[in-house]
């Protein structure tokens, strides 16, 4: 199942050249770029692991692409995203976020129904990926 989270997620995966252009846009806006990865793609999992610290004061996407490649080499079978943080007053928040790497096999999600008192049905979304313990999930 193709995970759709963040920008461009309904498009085919961005090529490196396209990723570079998006980063270039973010740098032009004076935003700081961070790289994060996870093997728990649940939409409510906001705590992805950071790949190094966010990168401030960069002028050119080449340095970020270097880190993206290093992250892919180390965490290639996980989801990796790039995010851009706007530190300007009034925003001080994340302005961009898009996926730049996916595991070979994306297990997708299960809709879990739990029947409660009075035949009330509760619904939950569970990622198949998290069935196994962390570290043994993908690949």
């Amino acid at each position, binding site marked *: 199942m193709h995970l759709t989270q963040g920008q461009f997620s309904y498009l085919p995966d961005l090529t490196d050249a396209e990723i570079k252009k998006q980063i270039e846009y973010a740098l032009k806006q004076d935003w700081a770029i961070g790289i994060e990865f996870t093997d728990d793609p649940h939409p409510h999992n906001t705590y992805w692991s950071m790949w190094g610290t966010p990168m401030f004061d*960069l*002028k*050119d*996407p080449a*340095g970020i692409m270097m880190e993206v490649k290093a992250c892919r080499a180390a965490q290639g079978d996980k989801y990796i995203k790039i995010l851009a943080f706007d530190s300007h007053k009034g925003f001080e928040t994340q302005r961009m976020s898009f996926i730049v790497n996916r595991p070979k096999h994306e297990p997708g999600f299960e809709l879990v129904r739990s029947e409660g008192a009075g035949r009330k049905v509760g619904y939950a979304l569970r990622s198949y990926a998290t069935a196994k313990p962390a570290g043994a999930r993908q690949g």
Partner: protein
Amino acid sequence: MTALAAIAEERVDLDALYAETSIGETFDQLDRELVGLTPVKTRIREIAALLLVERARRSLGLEAEPPALHMSFTGNPGTGKTTVARRMAEILHRLGYVRRNHVVSVTRDDLVGQYIGHTAPKTKDVLKKAMGGVLFIDEAYYLYRPENERDYGQEAIEILLQVMEDNRDDLVVILAGYKDRMDTFFESNPGMASRIAHHVDFPDYAADELFRIAELMVATMNYRFDAEATAAMKDYILRRMEQPRFANARSIRNALDRARLRQANRLFAERGRLLDRAALQTITAADIRASRVFAP
């Protein structure tokens, strides 16, 4: 004929390309603002010609690996290494070799960490910031400390070498330092020496060049020498060159700063009269001759 029209018929007009990059403007500025330094300027022109021809070749589909342009600037203090490095970014940017006109200027402290595991992220951080432009490492020989084999400088050099090789089209590295110490540095780091294609030596200035530099500095600071001060300055330069710790243009700048100080004191001591523009601008012989180099 525009460059594009020429390309259409499989011919390239180097003149048009030259005009398009407006590199001539930068050269004129270089000639105006940098006195002397003929070998350096020659080398810069050669590099510019290489890049221009490379562009012409590319426009006809004659692809080749981009030439490596890492450089080392060696020379005595005050010979203009830093100034030229800053210009280099502009020149390479105009010729389309680097994507951005920016220089990140660092020394050992910015690259080398304090404890195990600190150096790599620090060096990488600097490299990432410099990507797309020029990384200028001043006094690069401090990176290597032979007297301490556990020095972290070696780690910084290794990362630097790797990026110089892998990210050739993203980054130009310029190392600068005094000639003899840079030579020792390259001797003990052959990998570094072999990855640097351009070793540019900055010669010391001659006395008349130093005087022209003084004139340029005075003009940019909106001062001027009167006739006697001109003679005094020439005299000063000759005497200062004989003395220890002479640092070429830097010594001249310092001398002028002290002359300004004395001029200000002289004007302040004579207060009670109104000063005109000329008085505020003029440095007299007395302001220069009060220097310690004239002491018997």
